[in-house]
């Protein structure tokens, strides 16, 4: 069995962040688990990333134009932020409130939406939904700019209830109509389509003369509601707490079925979801107490390798392990990482539909498995990378083939593997034989062997799980 405290901290860092280098893990494992959780829950205590240098090296970041470089800037933040949970929560909300670049091809509004998720992502449900309702990218994506007093458009009103907050079965078609009327006149200032307007940022605008200020009845509340009132009511619904709790469970603990199945399939672990719902209700919809409950729960601690890694988690996790992309460097192009996640089925800031990505085993098909395996294997091919050096320096002393397999599995996770993987790796190590790592010469002699063993491990089925 792998060293338990390191294994648990590594699990926490994979889920609440994007993984960690070996030395970071060792540092964290010297502290109490619950203290590490508290540290993650208080991102403001850590310095934010300085982006000035990044911009100096990637001049295309001086202008909010191309998607790949701006998505790449987000990946760079995931790799390097000392506030990993802040970035992870931004990704969480991006999964739930899936908005895609492709409709308006308007990069500034997508950047600003993700920045909002990063800023508000750990606040409270009301703040988060209000930010979403006033977000220009979302407004255009779901046509609320076409939602007029004399001609309501229900796209936003419907998805707010169905996909973003309460879930099917907790409201009526009439509620959708009434909510939609309340959001009439909620639009944005800059016409978003790229042609012929160009890339300018847009901002929320309320057009009073296009707003239907008559009485509405929404979820048994009645009044001349505006959008703010709808958000207040939605954020307060037990169904909303339950819906977001289930999303949190699926994102952080273990894969749930896809969202459309939720109205017919109960949660796999109703007890844990209930605990999260209670935390929401006792804390007025605040996110941090819910995350505290989640990360300290036994269900979470026992959920190692119970979720298929999303492409972003796989790519960023591998990069953090091999220790590249730490400083802005023109030879390490950021769009390359975005491209890598895209061919694995996840182009961030550009999800396929408003339902977001299908997760779990649906990340995997022949093409994407090939990409996942080859990406990880390729990243581990150059033993001079700092992270790989760090791993190699921890393979010490005299090791039998079995010791060597244990050590490498420990260093790459720690990863628990099934019998087949174990015996396949063992047969590889048997060919190497017993090694002694005490002299410099011996270290050099076996570097390639060990690196190839690491490559086999990151190609395994088990490594596909977070």
């Amino acid at each position: 069995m792998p060293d338990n405290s390191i294994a648990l901290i590594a699990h926490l860092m994979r889920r609440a962040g994007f993984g960690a280098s070996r030395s970071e893990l060792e540092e964290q494992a010297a502290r109490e688990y619950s203290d590490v959780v508290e540290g993650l829950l208080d991102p403001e205590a850590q310095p934010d990333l300085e982006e000035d240098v990044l911009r100096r090296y990637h001049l295309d970041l001086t202008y909010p134009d191309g998607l790949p470089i701006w998505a790449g800037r987000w990946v760079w933040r995931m790799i390097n932020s000392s506030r990993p949970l802040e970035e992870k929560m931004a990704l969480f909300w991006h999964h739930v409130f899936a908005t895609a670049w492709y409709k308006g091809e308007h990069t500034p509004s997508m950047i600003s939406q993700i920045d909002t998720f990063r800023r508000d992502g750990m606040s409270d449900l009301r703040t988060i939904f209000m930010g979403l309702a006033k977000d220009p990218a979302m407004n255009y994506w779901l046509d609320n700019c076409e939602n007029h007093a004399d001609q309501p458009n229900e796209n936003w009103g419907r998805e707010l209830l169905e996909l973003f907050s309460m879930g099917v079965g907790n409201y009526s078609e009439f509620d959708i109509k009434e909510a939609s009327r309340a959001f009439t006149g909620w639009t944005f200032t800059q016409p978003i389509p790229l042609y012929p307007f160009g890339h300018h940022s847009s901002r929320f605008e309320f057009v009073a003369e296009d707003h239907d200020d008559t009485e509405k009845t929404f979820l048994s509340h009645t009044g001349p509601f505006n959008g703010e009132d709808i958000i207040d009511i939605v954020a307060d619904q037990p169904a909303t707490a339950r819906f977001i709790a289930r999303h949190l469970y699926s994102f952080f603990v273990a894969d749930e079925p896809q969202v459309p199945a939720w109205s017919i399939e109960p949660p796999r672990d109703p007890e844990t979801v209930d605990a999260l719902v209670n935390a929401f209700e006792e804390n007025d919809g605040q996110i941090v107490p819910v995350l505290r409950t989640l990360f300290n729960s036994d269900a979470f601690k026992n959920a190692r390798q119970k979720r298929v890694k999303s492409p972003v988690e796989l790519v960023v996790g591998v990069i953090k392990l091999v220790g590249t992309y730490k400083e802005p460097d023109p030879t390490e192009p950021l769009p390359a990482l975005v491209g890598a996640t895209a061919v694995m089925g996840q182009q961030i800031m550009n999800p396929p539909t408003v339902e977001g990505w299908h997760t779990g085993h649906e990340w995997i098909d022949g093409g994407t498995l090939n990409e996942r395996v080859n990406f990880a294997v390729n990243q581990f091919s150059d033993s001079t990378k700092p992270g790989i050096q760090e791993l190699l320096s921890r393979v010490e002393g005299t090791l039998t083939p079995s010791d060597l397999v244990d050590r490498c599995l420990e260093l790459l996770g720690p990863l628990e593997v099934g019998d087949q993987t174990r015996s396949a790796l063992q047969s590889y190590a048997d060919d190497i034989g017993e090694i002694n790592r005490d002299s410099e010469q011996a270290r050099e002699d076996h570097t390639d062997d060990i690196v190839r063993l690491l490559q086999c491990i990151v190609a395994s089925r088990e490594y596909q799980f977070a």
Partner: protein
Amino acid sequence: MTGNGNGSQPVLVVVQLSGGNDFMNTVIPYTNSTYYDSRPTVAIPHEKVLPFTDTLAFHPNMGPFKELYDQGMVAIVQGIGYPDSNRSHFRGMDIWHTCEPHVVATVGWVAKALNTLDPEGSNPLTGINFGVGLPRAMAMPGVPVTSVSNLDNYGLMTGIGAAEQRDRALDIFKRMYAPAIGSGPVMEYLSQTGNDVLAGADMIAVAPQQYESTIEYAATPIAQALRDVARVHTAGLGTRIFYTAHGGYDVHANENPAQPTLLGDLSAAISDFFADLREHDADDNVAMLVFTEFGRRVRDNGSGTDHGSGGGAFILGKNVNGGLYAEYPSLAQDQLANGEDLPHTIDFRGIYGTMLEQWLHIDPQPIVGGVYEQIGPFK
């Protein structure tokens, strides 16, 4: 090597022109004054076009394509499109990929066809995409599809350079992914998928080894992709649908020379592809469908053309009855879609239906989601 080992089983090659090819500058209404009046910047001068009827001409760079047309191998589908075009590339391409114009779907029409052709998913090479990333047209849970970005270096663990070391790593991979009873459905699914990838890569590896040809394809991406199709098709690995994309057709600005270069590359590549198949006596059972997600506006914008609606598609092959199908959309102002786009005169789902029913001999209805007007382009 002659023949292709697939017997008489029909093979479909789909070529996607990404970005929205400008149909009016591909098949040019060269006697229509509206064409010239609407396009002061990008219209192709009357004296340069390659006429093939009294009213229509190919773009001057499409010489090899016109030769195929003159041999009777090219069916031109004029005015292809779908109702209420929304002009978005991505949404437009999704609609073409899923046959669902009104709801967002994630299962592709090619994948559904593959599922009909090989319901057990017994051959991972029944459908092959050449390119980076799988198009949604080929996506469907449980349908194994092979996606090849580099045929000469396709497969797992290709980052391990030394052949001996890579073989050893592949052996470990195979053992790590061996089916394990009781490991749970997701682990079992991963095992199955890993083995499909291994099997597909093993099978496809023979294609570059066996292939010989006198045809010298250009170094362009589309020519190399079609050469890969030819290499795998002539190896007789049982592939029924090939897919590849040719990008760059989104010509808002500097349409000339961007589009002419692409059309030149495309027509040379297609011509070389069919010559290659002929040389291998492997052209009897191949039909190609060339499509794009939409046509462009009738009027130019002073530099290029913006996103429009109706466009054009092509069906090519030895068994094709060449000629014009459906109607060239009217350029009359009162006929235009959205007041400025070429309208469509035939629904793309009818053209998919034509290929599925008349070429692959499978029922198109569950794949394209209904009954749509077909054309009769095959002998």
